[in-house]
């Protein structure tokens, strides 16, 4: 059975057996969970379908968050994308809209798949649903790639953290972007080594990102940070597929993320005590929702 303590090890194992990371993971997890691989695949497929539903739900015009601070971002971005005037181009703008939609769905008490957390739930579906809808990728491949994302996420959780309260936003949106980048590379026909490279690049590019939610709610800036995670996932995957190497090996990047997370002060780890949460406007918004007594 695999240990999920090193991405380099996973890559070596996949190369040795001449399989994709997703196949390696699915077969291993079937043994670990003592459930047939087909059942695990179906369970993952169900999660993919929920992701598609979250995109639709969050794209609705009138979808407001519980606090009323946010809402409608997915709808607005999608409308803009359809006007075809965007700087990022149609494909990327729609992917951005989808990440916003899923994160907005979460904020409005819709159903989501944590990937790896609720706060970062828009990144993986933003990437995968876009490949399905706009590039015609087969559902089976997309579902399988989620096992690759899961395997990389397990190593990150093991060596570092996926909780904002422990490692800041780099641990949530950073991990989600790194996982998604690996999925994208595999879907595009990249090698296991290129999956690892994309993961390393994505982590490097969000190193040090703090968790500073206004009023402690998973809204500002979390919803938009799902977009930066998504864009980093795509760009990291493309760099890796182009053959650009990360220079710092992936496991060392993850270890660095842990060290940076530990060095971050508590005020920047989900306590709403620093960063954007502590700005005059951040405080004003908090008082607006909860009253000044809190």
């Amino acid at each position, binding site marked *: 059975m695999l240990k999920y303590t090193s991405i380099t090890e996973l890559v070596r194992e996949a190369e040795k057996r001449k399989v994709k990371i997703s196949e390696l993971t699915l077969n291993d997890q079937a043994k670990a969970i003592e459930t047939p691989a087909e059942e695990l695949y179906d369970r993952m497929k169900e999660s993919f379908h929920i992701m598609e539903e979250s995109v639709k739900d969050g794209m609705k015009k009138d979808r407001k968050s519980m606090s009323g601070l946010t809402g409608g971002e997915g709808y607005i971005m999608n409308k803009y994308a359809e006007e075809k005037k965007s700087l990022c181009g149609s494909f990327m703008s729609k992917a951005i809209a989808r990440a916003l939609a899923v994160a907005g769905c979460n904020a409005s*008490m819709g159903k989501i798949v944590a990937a790896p957390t609720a706060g970062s739930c828009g990144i993986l579906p933003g990437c995968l649903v876009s490949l399905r809808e706009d590039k015609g990728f087969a559902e089976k491949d997309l579902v399988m790639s989620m096992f690759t994302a899961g395997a990389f996420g397990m190593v990150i959780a093991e060596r570092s953290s996926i909780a904002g309260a422990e490692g800041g936003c780099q641990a949530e949106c950073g991990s989600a972007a790194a996982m998604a980048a690996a999925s994208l590379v595999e879907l595009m026909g990249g090698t296991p080594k290129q999956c690892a490279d994309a993961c390393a690049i994505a982590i490097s590019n969000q190193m040090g990102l703090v968790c500073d939610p206004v009023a402690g709610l998973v809204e500002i800036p979390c919803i938009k940070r799902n977009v930066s995670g998504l864009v980093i996932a795509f760009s990291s995957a493309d760099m890796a597929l182009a053959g650009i190497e990360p220079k710092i090996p992936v496991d060392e990047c993850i270890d660095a993320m842990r060290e940076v997370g530990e060095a971050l002060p508590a005020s920047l780890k989900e306590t709403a005590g620093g960063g954007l949460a502590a700005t005059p406007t951040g405080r004003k918004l908090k008082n607006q929702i909860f009253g000044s007594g809190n």
Partner: protein
Amino acid sequence: MNVFDIIGPVMIGPSSSHTAGAVRLGGVVNKLADGRKIKKVEITLSGSFAKTYKGHGTDRALLAGIMGYDSFSPEIRDALDIADKKQIEYVFLKENIRGAHPNTARIHYYLEDGTEGVMQGASIGGGNILVNRINGMEVKFTGDNNTLLVMHEDTPGVIAGVTNLMHWEYEDINISNFNLSRQQKGGIAIMSIEIDNQPPETLVKDIRGIDHVINAILIRKI
């Protein structure tokens, strides 16, 4: 840890601790009610729950759990309306419960048959919970396993009576965790027994028949 801990859980947002965990805490009360109609709940929120419950929908999540919904049920968003329709009275109070985990809720429930009880528990992160008190007595269980709660008179031999019955009458049952607390010597005590297996239907009834046992409830995995 497995791949579905990373790609998952499927849940209603926005927060695993303030929403998904809150549904599961409410779920403990639903199990305690054991199928009887709940008439009224007084929900006391402490710490971060008290400060941010509106923005996280913690109030809706707790009520949804009390009514038997899961942490992935879309009904959570409308739980207040559903409770109104079901004629379940609810009130939310804020109090700083001393020494409690920051995400703690205490739920006082009143059933239609006149029974009432109090459950206190915390949402400890990632949707996980820890139940701390039932009817003022300390307990300690997570809801991840099937848990037997046995209320009994504090007198010698009751624990042996319960565990012997579990072993000799149902030999497959394996206890994974055991906790005992009592109000005072010779008073009322409570055992919380987490078990690995799927408990047989007759187990609770048999335990209720043991001398000095006041009541037994099975809280199935939440």
